[in-house]
């Protein structure tokens, strides 16, 4: 992974407590999996940053190495990699995502 990508990604997850790397934007997602994770966060009223990887190829390719995870979307909470679509959905259904948000002191509504 190139240094530029690494720096960009580090800065994004540093600056944004809840950071979702996705295809498209929270308002106009370009992929069903990105839509699903974005909707979970919206449903919980979580304030999050959606990073559109389609607009930046450094980030699009870099994030896969950065997280050692081959797919997008990818969710970070306070610099911790939480997972992709399947994991986030499952955690939400089991209320584990809500527990994680509480643990990390991120406000959300039930």
């Amino acid at each position: 992974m190139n240094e530029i990508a690494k720096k960009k990604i580090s800065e994004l997850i540093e600056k944004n407590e809840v950071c979702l790397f996705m295809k498209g934007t929270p308002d106009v997602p370009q992929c069903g999996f990105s839509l699903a994770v974005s909707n979970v966060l919206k449903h919980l009223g979580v304030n999050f940053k959606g990073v559109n990887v389609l607009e930046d190829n450094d980030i699009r390719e870099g994030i896969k190495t950065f997280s050692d995870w081959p797919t997008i979307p990818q969710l970070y909470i306070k610099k911790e990699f939480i997972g992709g679509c399947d994991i986030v959905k499952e955690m939400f259904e089991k209320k584990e995502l809500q527990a994680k948000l509480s643990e990390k002191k991120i406000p959300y509504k039930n």
Partner: protein
Amino acid sequence: MSLKLEEIRNLIKESIPDAEITIQDLAGDENHYSATIKSKIFNGKSKIEQHKMVYKSLKGKMGNELHALSINTIEA
């Protein structure tokens, strides 16, 4: 770019021999699959680690030849 259902099954089986695998071709286009995989190797591992094991078994095809694979891992 696509990958046949049987190829996915074989790749997973190669890395995770005890896996019980159910795969569905969601859109009938050999590009959007959903797989449920049950194995002892997942026991005690985090979800992230479990999914990474499945991704590793696909040898870099995930995100390339294979566009979308929804994964559900179960401890045996």
